[in-house]
């Protein structure tokens, strides 16, 4: 005896493929109801009809409807209903994915990266340009304030008068306007960086509290995105967390036998980047195992870490530094 079902109906067949019992979905066949059924089926659940028949015939084997030869085909109305419902279901599922903090975090991290790159690129373009126009001034020194100074000046002459100069190029008003609009871009990109950074910090602090306390929200967010989500980060071994962000050198190590990387994103943490070179590997190892614990605390609903845990780790960092110094 075989129990077969799909979203429309459930049937029990005997060995000769005769229908013994049948239970058809008799509710209103609306799109919303079909979407609900498809969703349940997709997650591996049985329909109500299938459950009814299973109770009536507990000894029946469950058979997959697509491999059952005599399973009724969809009529035109059902095919249309299935098609329309599949669109709604797909949209719902996309919303589920995109409303997850992991997804938001990913886009914030990427947007931050893009804005930072833009700001830097445009800034170096501007510095190159102005350097050639003011050969006797060290423009590089005023790098960060250059854009703001240009925006504060009404014209080229006023801008130039703020520097001690011997030789100055002549600049037409069109060119001056171009310089100004380039400077505006830098200002915009910089303010975008600040806005995104603040949002990112807020989200990381609430979504990854322990990891953010330990490593700072920026690194915590980068790790989470690199691992493709908090759930997966929490399941990574500490040794992987240690080299997340150093994929290039890690895979060249595996493929070509170069030296393995000691640290990835966590290098940005001052405990590592400000430590003597010889201690960085050990500290990265210790810190990544603590980070793995912190990520698990965040993911599986433990009590979030606070200043106490952080200072304990900091003490260990100090111990490693002292131990290496003593040698």
């Amino acid at each position: 005896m075989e129990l077969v079902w799909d979203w429309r109906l459930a049937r029990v067949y005997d060995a000769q493929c005769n229908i013994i019992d049948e239970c058809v979905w008799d509710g209103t066949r609306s799109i919303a109801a079909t979407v609900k059924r498809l969703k349940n089926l997709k997650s591996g659940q049985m329909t109500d009809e299938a459950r009814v028949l299973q109770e009536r015939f507990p000894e029946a084997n469950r058979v997959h409807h697509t491999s059952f030869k005599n399973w009724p085909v969809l009529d035109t109305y059902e095919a249309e209903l299935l098609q329309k419902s599949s669109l709604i279901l797909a949209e719902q599922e996309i919303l589920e994915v995109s409303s997850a903090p992991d997804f938001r975090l990913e886009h914030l991290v990427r947007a931050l990266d893009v804005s930072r790159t833009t700001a830097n690129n445009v800034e170096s373009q501007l510095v190159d340009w102005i350097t050639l126009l003011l050969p006797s001034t060290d423009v590089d020194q005023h790098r960060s304030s250059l854009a703001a100074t240009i925006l504060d000046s009404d014209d080229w002459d006023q801008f130039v008068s703020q520097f001690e100069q011997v030789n100055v190029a002549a600049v037409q008003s069109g060119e001056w306007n171009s310089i100004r609009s380039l400077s505006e871009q830098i200002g915009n990109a910089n303010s975008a960086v600040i806005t995104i950074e603040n949002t990112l910090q807020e989200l990381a602090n609430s979504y990854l509290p322990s990891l953010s306390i330990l490593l700072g929200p920026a690194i915590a967010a980068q790790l989470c995105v690199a691992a493709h989500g908090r759930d997966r980060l929490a399941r990574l071994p500490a040794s992987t967390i240690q080299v997340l962000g150093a994929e290039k050198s890690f895979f060249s190590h595996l493929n070509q036998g170069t030296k393995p990387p000691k640290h990835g994103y966590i290098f940005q943490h001052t405990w590592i980047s400000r430590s003597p070179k010889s201690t960085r590997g050990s500290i990265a190892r210790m810190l990544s195992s603590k980070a793995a614990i912190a990520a698990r605390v965040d993911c599986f609903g433990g009590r979030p870490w606070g200043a106490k845990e952080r200072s304990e780790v900091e003490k260990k960092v100090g111990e490693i530094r002292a131990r290496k110094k003593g040698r």
Partner: protein
Amino acid sequence: MNSFSNRVKIEGRTLWSRNALRGVSLRGERLKRQGRIEWRQWNPFSSKIAAGLLKSQQPGILPTIGSTCLYLGSGHGTTISHLHDQVCGSNNHSEGTIVAVDLSPRCIIDLIQLAETRPGIIPVLADCRDLVSISPFLCSEVPWLFQDVSQSGQVDIFIQACERYLASGGTGILSLKSQSERDASVAFANAEDVLIKAGFTLVEKIDLTGWEDKHMLFHVVK
């Protein structure tokens, strides 16, 4: 002129499908009128099926008009739109179905938009390895299955999907990217062995060099 069906043809060195949505070019493909029929160019650089059709020596790559197709790894829907031209036709008057599975929400959004203007396409957000999540959208085994997922273990995914969903005698087409496998140099030879051992009849191996480097289409029959 070489016709695959009255909806897909080769003219000179270009491939054309009969546009099911008159006047609409999806990604800027060329359109041309021949009497009442509008043809839409099918670009072999952005569709592996198109490249396969242009290079193939054997018939049977295209699904038949009005059939049900399972397409694993649908991407942004370029190939799907041309398959829709073939299988469903204008406003799906041929009553075909294309179940398009992809893992990426971004791709599924594109497919939803495609499906709204081209009835007959069923977009499914799912991992191709998770066969349970595909079955609610199918009614029976399908006569045509295509897989293009570019991830490690493609051949195993393909075999599992075919065992479960491809009707016996049905056409299965696997697009294999050697670079997605651990050992790229032997990927094609291994794949052939595995497919034959799994009980498929290999109709043709189509090397897509020139359009998609390091790609091979395996055309099999269950």
